[in-house]
């Protein structure tokens, strides 16, 4: 694999929480400019994998991001290098206004003009956010909060965006919208590592997919291939 093609390479990464082994020897890689989805049932270790990559938990093994070893690097340092983690459960700042939330997304940046441009870009993706700039973020609907969380992450100008269950708890129609936007963000040049429960949608938008089962990689391949495979259909797509 050519060096420039791979933006993130995860090799033999394991994480334990005390005595619990959450993931063991997980390996996969994300190509520059693609969407890779990580699917698996509850407790499979998807969130843990993202946390290991973004430096939120300690891990063993190797993580390479843009040809640099990053295992053990602090999350805030990784953000400045272009790796941005949009955590599970949205993690918006509920007592701050929508605008303040967005400003925090650009915390590491000081290029005011460019930030302003990126904000406009976020408003284009999420017109609803713009209407609610002064509103307390905690009073947004679940879907709006999710949009805010993604928009805020974009303001850090990520090269690789880690999204943890962006469709969690959203109405089917909104799920469609969110996935459409994920595709748009990707089309603008951001590589995406997408964790999803909604395997059906995730496999539609992703180029490649990794299936996690009890902390181990069970399958990897083209998303379209996995969507057709019997095991995946049975376990994650609800087809007998």
């Amino acid at each position: 694999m050519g060096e420039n093609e791979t933006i993130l390479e995860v090799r033999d990464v394991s994480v334990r929480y005390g005595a619990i082994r959450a993931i063991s020897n997980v390996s996969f890689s994300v190509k520059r400019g693609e969407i890779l989805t990580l699917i698996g049932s509850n407790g499979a270790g998807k969130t843990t994998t993202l946390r290991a990559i973004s430096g939120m938990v300690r891990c063993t093994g190797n993580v390479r991001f843009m040809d640099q070893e990053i295992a053990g690097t602090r999350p805030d340092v990784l953000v400045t290098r272009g790796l941005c983690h949009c955590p599970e459960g949205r993690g918006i700042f509920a007592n701050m206004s929508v605008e303040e939330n967005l400003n925090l997304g650009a915390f590491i940046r000081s290029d005011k003009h460019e930030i302003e441009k990126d904000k406009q870009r976020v408003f284009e993706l999420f017109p609803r956010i713009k209407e609610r700039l002064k509103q307390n973020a905690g009073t947004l609907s679940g879907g709006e909060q999710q949009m805010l969380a993604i928009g805020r992450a974009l303001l850090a100008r990520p090269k690789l965006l880690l999204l943890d269950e962006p469709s969690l708890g959203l109405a089917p129609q909104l799920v469609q919208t969110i996935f459409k936007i994920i595709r748009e963000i990707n089309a603008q040049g951001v590589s995406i590592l997408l964790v999803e429960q909604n395997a059906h949608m995730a496999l539609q938008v992703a180029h490649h997919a990794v299936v996690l089962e009890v902390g181990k990689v069970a399958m990897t391949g083209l998303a379209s291939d996995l969507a057709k495979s019997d095991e995946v259909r049975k376990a994650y797509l609800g087809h007998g």
Partner: protein
Amino acid sequence: MSGELQQLVPTMMPSAARALLKGVALPVASALVLGLVMQFVVGPAIGAYPASVALQVGISVMLAVSLNIVNGYTGQFSIGHAGFFAVGAYVGAGISYYAALSGIDPASGQQPSQALSNGAWLVWNDGQNFLFSYGEWRMILASIVGGCVAAGLGYIVGLPSLRLRGDYLAIVTLGFGEITRVLLTQTKPQIFDRDELAATHAKDWVIPPMGGATGFSDIPAYASLMWVWFFVAVMIFFAYRVKQSSTGRALLSIREDEIAARSMGVNITKYKVRAFVLAAGLAGLAGSLYAHTGQVIRPQEAGFQRSFEVIIFVVLGGMGSISGVVLAAIILSILPEALRDLSEYRLIVYALLLILMMIVRPKGLFGVREIWEFWPFTRAKKSEKKVITP
């Protein structure tokens, strides 16, 4: 609010001089005005005893504003703030008192009552004094040193505990306050004789002669109404500036959600420690000023009771709202004086107030917002602006 302003400003490109004027000169000037008004208008108008209460109110406000940076903005729970206060008090008092005793300033050593009436006189340079009296300049220097020592201790205490889970900070700061109190009782007796002081060697200062359990007295009382309220204003400006800065945004984000703050690129340990050091330093400065208000300072200054009082100010005022905690500190410091007979039950009243507050307004009087952000007028203006933006 300031975000919109900042959007407008780039076209004007403020020069460095203008920024300096706006950032330093203006606040200092207005603080000076407040100090002078307190000294020459309010002080004489309310009489001697209320004026001495006004001094203590000022000290309370400083403590509240400083603790607000940690417990309010950052959402960390420090319960040993009085420890830093006491350290600042003893360091500042020690410098001022022993410098005066050793005869560096023969004019000092006046009685508290004298200083209260004489304080803040503008003395133009007569060879010995410049603008203010020698002792006042020395008090300011001693207070800055006191603040720096407290800030340094804040770093030593904060760094290890803030890296760990939240509750560690509470335990460690509680311990810090108590240890400080005990150590202060172990200091040697105060030296009152000039010749005795001259005869001391460096090794006599390993355990400093700070009066032990009896306390440290006769501190030159230069902290007049003017100086106390000058520093109150400076501290409020400073705290407000911090809140509006990117540091402030980082602190507030930590309080809201640590994981999300980290994923925004906020180095949470660094910012928590920064908040803690700032708060400790300001508490130390307040402590030193307190020592110069004509008080005998005692080891109990470091005790839990004072820490608890400050926590009450911050919690009631609104955990992050500067105007809120200032108001709470003022009201709750005047109230016990107004209800002298009930002052023994003060802590009970505080506890009841706290419980009531938790039920009625769990985020404090004003939450994290400032008072003026609640004015309907500001609200209307904001929504107008929202419509205008293309």
